[in-house]
C-alpha cells in the first residue's frame, strides 16, 4: 500500500524547533502503526446522505503524537470511531498495527484503547479504583499487575488521593483523569483520544498534555488526538492533519505548516463592528489567502485576522479597509498560528466554518 | 396569574413527557397493558383462592377489580413529582425550574396533573377491558353500576383524591429534593405500602389491630370506599358522600403535611447544596 501523500514525505525528519520532543521517534522509516487509505464514511440522516469522511489518507508512526485538527463536524470523531473498531468504513481501508479494522477488529482491540473528553463513563457507586480495576479486567490483566498500573498512572495525573472516592463524587476534572488512566490501563500500542482536554481548566489541561507526552515518549505509544484546540496541537503534536468537511487539507509538523504561510499575518481592530457581509470583499483582494473575524464586545470593535502572502498585500488590505469607511483602531503583524494555517487553506476561520454548519 | 401560567406550561411539558411516542396508539397501549395485567392478576388471585374454597362471589370480584385499578392509578401519578425532580437533576431542568420566580411547586403541580389525566385514561381503559375479559374468562357477571351518575361520582372521587395523592407526592419529593440515593426506589416502596394499607385488595380490618386503625383513616382508603359505593351495585349515595368527606379531610391534611415537608426540604437541600446534584 502506498498511501504516503507528498506533503507527508516532505516533512522534516526531526523537529529542531521543539527540543522537548526531540527524543520522539519521528522518522519516515519508523514502524507505521496507523494507516488510512482512501477512507470514506457516509451516514444516512433525515436530510439525506452526510459524508463525514471523504477520501482520507494518513500514516502515523510508532511513538508519534498525531493531531487531527478541524472545526465541529469536520469528521474527527468519525475517524476515531472507525479506527477504534466502533464504526465501519463505507469504503477505503483503515488499519491499526497492521490489522484491518473491517476484517480483524478483535486483533486491533487487544492492542488499542480510546477515550473521549465528552465521556464520563464509570459506575457511580464504585470507587475510582474499582472502576479502573474493572476496566483492566476487560483486557484480562492480572489484578496485581492492574493495581500497579493504576497506581503508576494515577500518580502521574495527581489522582492517587481520589482513587477511593465513589465515581459519582468526583468532579469533572477528576472523572476525566480516571478516563485517561483507563485509556492507558492495558499498555496499549495505539491510543485514540477524542478532545481529551475539552471543558477542563488550563492547569488541568496542561497536566494532561504532559501525561500524554510522557506516554508517547517513554513507552513509544502512538497517540492520535482529535481536537479543535490549536494550542493543544502546537504544544504536543509531532504532526497534525488539518481536516475540514471530511477531507484532509494539509498534513505536516505544526512548525512547517506555520512556516509555509510565508509572511506574518495581519491583525486589524476596526470600529464600528462591521456586518459580516461587508467584510467579504476582503477575501477577494489580491494576496489575501483568507480571513477570520471576531467581535470584542467590551471594546465595541471587531478584530480581523487576515492571512496575507507578503508585506505589500498587508498594506493594501489596510488601505482597502480604510476606504470602505471603517476606522482602523489599530493594526499589527503577528507570527502565524495554526488557526491562520486553517484560514489560508479554507479561506475562513473555525468560527465561521462552525457557524455555517450550524 | 403567572403561577397559573407556569402550571399550565408544566401540564404541557408533563403531557409530552407522558406521551413522547412516535406512534401515540402504540404508546397508549404500552402504558395500558401494565395496569390491565395488574388488575387481572389481582382478580385471578382472588378467583383461584375463592374457587378452591368454594366461596367465589361476584361482588367480591368487583371489589378487587375496582381496588386494583384505582390502586395503579394512585401509584402511577403520586410518584411523578419525585420522578420530575430526580430526572430533572440529571437533565438540569430541575435546577432551572427551581430558581424560576415561582420556584418548583407550580411545575410539580403541573406535572402531577398531566400524569393524573393520562393515568386516568389508562385506568379507565384497563377497567373496561378487564371487566369484559374477566366476565368471560371467569364466566360470571360482575355487579358494576354503570350509569352517568355512578361514573360522574367515580370521577369526582378521583378528583378529590388528587389532594391526598399530591400530598403524598410532595412528601416523597421532599425527600427527593435533598436525597442523593434511594430517591428512585422510595416511591416504589411507598407504592407497596399503599397496596397493603389502602384497602386496595382486601378490607383493612384484616390487618392486625393498631395497624388497621391507621389504614382505616387514610384518605386513600376512604377514596377506595367511596369509589366502590359509586361503582358496585348496592352502594348508596349517603355513604359515598361520607367517604368523600373523610377523603377530603384526610387529603387536605396530607397535602398540608406534604407542603410543609417540601418547604422544609427546599431549605435543607439548599443548605446541603444538592438542588443541582446529579445522582444515580
Amino acid at each position, binding site marked *: 500500500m502506498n498511501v504516503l501523500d507528498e506533503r507527508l514525505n516532505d516533512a522534516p525528519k526531526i523537529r529542531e524547533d521543539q527540543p522537548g520532543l526531540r527524543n520522539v521517534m519521528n522518522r519516515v522509516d519508523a514502524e507505521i502503526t496507523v494507516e488510512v487509505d482512501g477512507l470514506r464514511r457516509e*451516514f444516512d440522516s433525515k436530510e439525506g446522505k452526510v459524508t463525514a469522511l471523504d477520501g482520507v489518507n494518513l500514516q502515523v508512526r510508532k511513538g508519534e503524537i498525531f493531531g487531527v485538527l478541524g472545526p465541529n463536524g469536520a469528521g474527527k470523531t468519525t475517524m476515531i470511531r472507525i479506527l477504534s473498531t466502533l464504526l465501519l468504513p463505507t469504503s477505503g481501508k483503515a488499519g491499526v498495527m497492521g490489522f484491518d479494522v473491517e476484517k480483524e477488529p478483535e486483533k486491533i482491540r487487544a492492542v488499542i484503547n480510546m477515550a473521549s473528553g465528552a465521556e464520563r*463513563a464509570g459506575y457511580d457507586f464504585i470507587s475510582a479504583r474499582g472502576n479502573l480495576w474493572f*476496566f483492566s479486567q476487560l*483486557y484480562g490483566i492480572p489484578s496485581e499487575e492492574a493495581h500497579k498500573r493504576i497506581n503508576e498512572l494515577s500518580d502521574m495525573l495527581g489522582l492517587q488521593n481520589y482513587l477511593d472516592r465513589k465515581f459519582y463524587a468526583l468532579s469533572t476534572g477528576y472523572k476525566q483523569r480516571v478516563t485517561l488512566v483507563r485509556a492507558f490501563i492495558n499498555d496499549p500500542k495505539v491510543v485514540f483520544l477524542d478532545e481529551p482536554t475539552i471543558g477542563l481548566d488550563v492547569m488541568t489541561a496542561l497536566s494532561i498534555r504532559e501525561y500524554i507526552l510522557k506516554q508517547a515518549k517513554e513507552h513509544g505509544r502512538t497517540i492520535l488526538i482529535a481536537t479543535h484546540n490549536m494550542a493543544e496541537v502546537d504544544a504536543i503534536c509531532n504532526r497534525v492533519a488539518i481536516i475540514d468537511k471530511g477531507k484532509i487539507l494539509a498534513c505536516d509538523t505544526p512548525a512547517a505548516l506555520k512556516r509555509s504561510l510565508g509572511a506574518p499575518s495581519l491583525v486589524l481592530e476596526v470600529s464600528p463592528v462591521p456586518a459580516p457581509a461587508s467584510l467579504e470583499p476582503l477575501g477577494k483582494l489580491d494576496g489575501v489567502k483568507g480571513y477570520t473575524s471576531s467581535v470584542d464586545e467590551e471594546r465595541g470593535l471587531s478584530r480581523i485576522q487576515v492571512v496575507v502572502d507578503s508585506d505589500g498585500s498587508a498594506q493594501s488590505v489596510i488601505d482597502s479597509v480604510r476606504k470602505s469607511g471603517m476606522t482602523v483602531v489599530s493594526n499589527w503583524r503577528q507570527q502565524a498560528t495554526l488557526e491562520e494555517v486553517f484560514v489560508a487553506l479554507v479561506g475562513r476561520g473555525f468560527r465561521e466554518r462552525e457557524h455555517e454548519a450550524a | 396569574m403567572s403561577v397559573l401560567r407556569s402550571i399550565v406550561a408544566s401540564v404541557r411539558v408533563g403531557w409530552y413527557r407522558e406521551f413522547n411516542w412516535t406512534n401515540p396508539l402504540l404508546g397508549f397501549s404500552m402504558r395500558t397493558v401494565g*395496569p*390491565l395485567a395488574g388488575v387481572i392478576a389481582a382478580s385471578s388471585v382472588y378467583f383461584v383462592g375463592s374457587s378452591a374454597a368454594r366461596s367465589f362471589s361476584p361482588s367480591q370480584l368487583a371489589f378487587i377489580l375496582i381496588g386494583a385499578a384505582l390502586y395503579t392509578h394512585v401509584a402511577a401519578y403520586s410518584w411523578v413529582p419525585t420522578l420530575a425532580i430526580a430526572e430533572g437533576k440529571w437533565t438540569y431542568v430541575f435546577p432551572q425550574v427551581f430558581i424560576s420566580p415561582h420556584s418548583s411547586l407550580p411545575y410539580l403541580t403541573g406535572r402531577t396533573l398531566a400524569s393524573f389525566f393520562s393515568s386516568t385514561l389508562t385506568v379507565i381503559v384497563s377497567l373496561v377491558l378487564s371487566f369484559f375479559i374477566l366476565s368471560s374468562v371467569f364466566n360470571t357477571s360482575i355487579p358494576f353500576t354503570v350509569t352517568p351518575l355512578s361514573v360522574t361520582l367515580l370521577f369526582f372521587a378521583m378528583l378529590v383524591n388528587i389532594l391526598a395523592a399530591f400530598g403524598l407526592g410532595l412528601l416523597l419529593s421532599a425527600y427527593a429534593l435533598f436525597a442523593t440515593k434511594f430517591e428512585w426506589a422510595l416511591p416504589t416502596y411507598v407504592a*407497596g405500602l399503599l397496596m*397493603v394499607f389502602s384497602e386496595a385488595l382486601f378490607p383493612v380490618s384484616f390487618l392486625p389491630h393498631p395497624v388497621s386503625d391507621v389504614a382505616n383513616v387514610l384518605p386513600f382508603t376512604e377514596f377506595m370506599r367511596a369509589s366502590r359505593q359509586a361503582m358496585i351495585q348496592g352502594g348508596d349515595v349517603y355513604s359515598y358522600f361520607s367517604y368523600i368527606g373523610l377523603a377530603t379531610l384526610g387529603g387536605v391534611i396530607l397535602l398540608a403535611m406534604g407542603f410543609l415537608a417540601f418547604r422544609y426540604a427546599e431549605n435543607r437541600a439548599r443548605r446541603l447544596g444538592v438542588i443541582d446534584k446529579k445522582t444515580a
Partner: protein
Amino acid sequence: MKLHSNPWLRTAYARLWVRAKSIYGEPLWVAVNVGFPFFTSFSFTMVYRAYGLGAYAGFAILGGVMISFWGNVLWSMASQFNWDKQVGLFEIYISSPAPITAILVGMSLGGILGTAPSAAMVAILGWVIFAPPIHPFWPAVVLVFSLTLASLYAMGMALSSLYLAYGREADSVNEALHEPVSLISGVYFPSVGGISPFPFAVQAAASLVPLTIGMDALRQSLGFPIKVAFIPLYIEALILALMALILLLASSRALRFLENKGRRTGSIAVRQR
C-alpha cells in the same frame, strides 16, 4: 503478550463484582429492595386468606421472591446495555477485547447475587408471618430454582439484545412487560395446570415464557397444594435447561449481529460529541 490471560473469566468476574458491589456497598439497598415485592406478596397472601384459602399463601410468597428476580432481569439486564450506551460504557466494552457474553454472564451472576438477599428476606418474612404448608423435596427445589434463574437471566440477555436493536424506549418496554409477564407466568397464582383460571390456549402460550415453567416447577418441588400438576417435574426441569441454552445462544448470536450492524450504521455510540 503475557498480560492477556483468559479475558473471558476475568471479564465475567469483574462484571459480577461491579454489579454485586454496587448493591452490597450500600446495605440499605437490601431493605429498600425488599419493600415492593414483600408488600405485594403480603397483599396477595391476605387476599388468599381473606376470601378463601390460607393454604395458598405459599403461592404469593414464592411470587414475591421470584418477582424480585424478574424485576432485576428487566431493569438491570434487559435495559442495561441501553443505559451503558447512554453513559458511554457500551463503546468501551465493544472496543475492548472482552467477549460480550462474558459481560452478560457476569452481569447475570452479579444480579442474582445482588437480588438474593432481598429475595431471601421476602421468603423469610412471608414464612414467619404466614407459615404456609409446604412439603419440599430440597434437592429438586435447588435444581429447579437454579434452572429457573438460568433461563430467566438468559431471557434477560435475549431481551437486552432486542432492546439494543429497538433502542430508546427501553424503559417503557420494561414497564409494559413487567406486569403482563408476571400475570401470564403465574407469579402469584398457578397460571398453568389444574387450578389455573385460564383457558388452555392461554396456558399453552404462557408456557413459552421460561418463568411460567419455572414457577410451576418450583410449586411442584416445594410441595404446594396443587391438585393437578401441569407437566411432570423432571420434564419441566429439562425444558428449563433447554430454554436457558437456546436463549443464551440466541442472545450471543443476536449481539454479534447487532455489533456488526451497529458498526455499519454508526449506532454503537449515541451521538454525544
